[in-house]
């Protein structure tokens, strides 16, 4: 008999939580004059973005941001300097980027013109992080939708058909 398996965790976001997060990030965008604010999970998956997308590849940006923070955290850990809610700041002549560890699941990225005082942006990043955490804790995520309601055989067929459709030989 096969061992029972499990997934490694992750997040489930319901519409009311998403709406609250959207409101927080919209307001932050205005206050910080950010070009872009991105909320991603720790595996790099984009949850929400606000600002000018332009030609930015958000999928790649999410993956790279999560990896950037993970690498920084590991550098801190190896150096015995790790602390929770770390912030990684990259200062540029035109733009600054700030990556912040919201909690064990979430990461915030701000891309802000260098003309905006960095201290102010760091304050706002912490503020939005606290607001997001509060929003997520306020609303019980009791989503009870049935997920992939289907018998096993049929589900296999559906998954394989979906894969066949995107695959070119």
């Amino acid at each position, binding site marked *: 008999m*096969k*061992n*029972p*398996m*499990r*997934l*490694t*965790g*992750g*997040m*489930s*976001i*319901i*519409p009311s939580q*998403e709406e609250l997060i959207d409101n927080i990030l919209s307001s932050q965008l205005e206050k910080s004059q950010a070009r872009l604010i991105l909320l991603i*999970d*720790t*595996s*790099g*998956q984009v*949850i929400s973005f606000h600002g000018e997308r332009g030609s930015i*590849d958000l*999928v*790649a940006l999410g*993956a*790279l941001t999560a*990896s950037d923070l*993970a*690498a920084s955290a*590991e550098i801190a850990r*190896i150096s015995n300097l790790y602390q929770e809610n770390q912030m990684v700041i990259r200062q540029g002549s035109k733009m600054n980027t700030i990556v912040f560890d919201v909690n064990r699941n979430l990461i915030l990225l701000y891309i802000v013109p260098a003309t905006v005082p960095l201290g102010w942006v760091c304050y706002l990043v912490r503020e939005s992080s606290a607001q997001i955490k509060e929003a997520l804790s306020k609303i019980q995520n009791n*989503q009870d*939708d049935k*997920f*992939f*309601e*289907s018998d*096993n055989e049929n*589900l*296999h067929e*559906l*998954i*394989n058909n*979906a*894969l066949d*459709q*995107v*695959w*070119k*030989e």
Partner: protein
Amino acid sequence: MNINWQLRQLRLKIVYYGPAMSGKTTNIEQIHKRIDPSNRSNLVSLKTNEDRTLFFDFMQFELGKICGMAPCIQLYTVPGQEYYKASRKLVLRGADGVVFVADSSAARINDNLESWLDMGNALNEMNHPIGKIPLVVQYNKRDLADAVSIQSLHQSLGVGAYPEFEAVAFNGEGVFNTLKSIVNDVIFQVQKELQ
């Protein structure tokens, strides 16, 4: 895993693990080449000057709706070289499923085993030991003159009952079957956990 109920989108992370030069990046490149561009992201590769994977390769693709949900699959590879152990652990973090890509060459049996054990340790450290996470094994480079038998590879790694596939990733053989298998296993796992 990340579920957005508003968009009815399910995002899953699958990591290709294995020894250096076993064909992890080649698998992802083949997948990238063969998936309809309208359904996939660009391929992101963080490489050294010698064209070896420094941190990871990454791509994402979307599947059409399945029972009302739209799965979005993220594929990562780890760097294979021994000295990138710390980076491998970071990439493995948050994985919903793993593909272990073994090199079929007789000369690489020990490298396969070291990488398998390294993966096992990393998963243990994350409290997701082998046996508790969807896992598929691919025996790549089956076209090599010194390729050892599947049975020997299976025994040397102690793979157990996981799905196994033969592949020549360089020309795409076995790549899709491996992908299909891990995507099925991961989605089934999601279904089971959310029921």
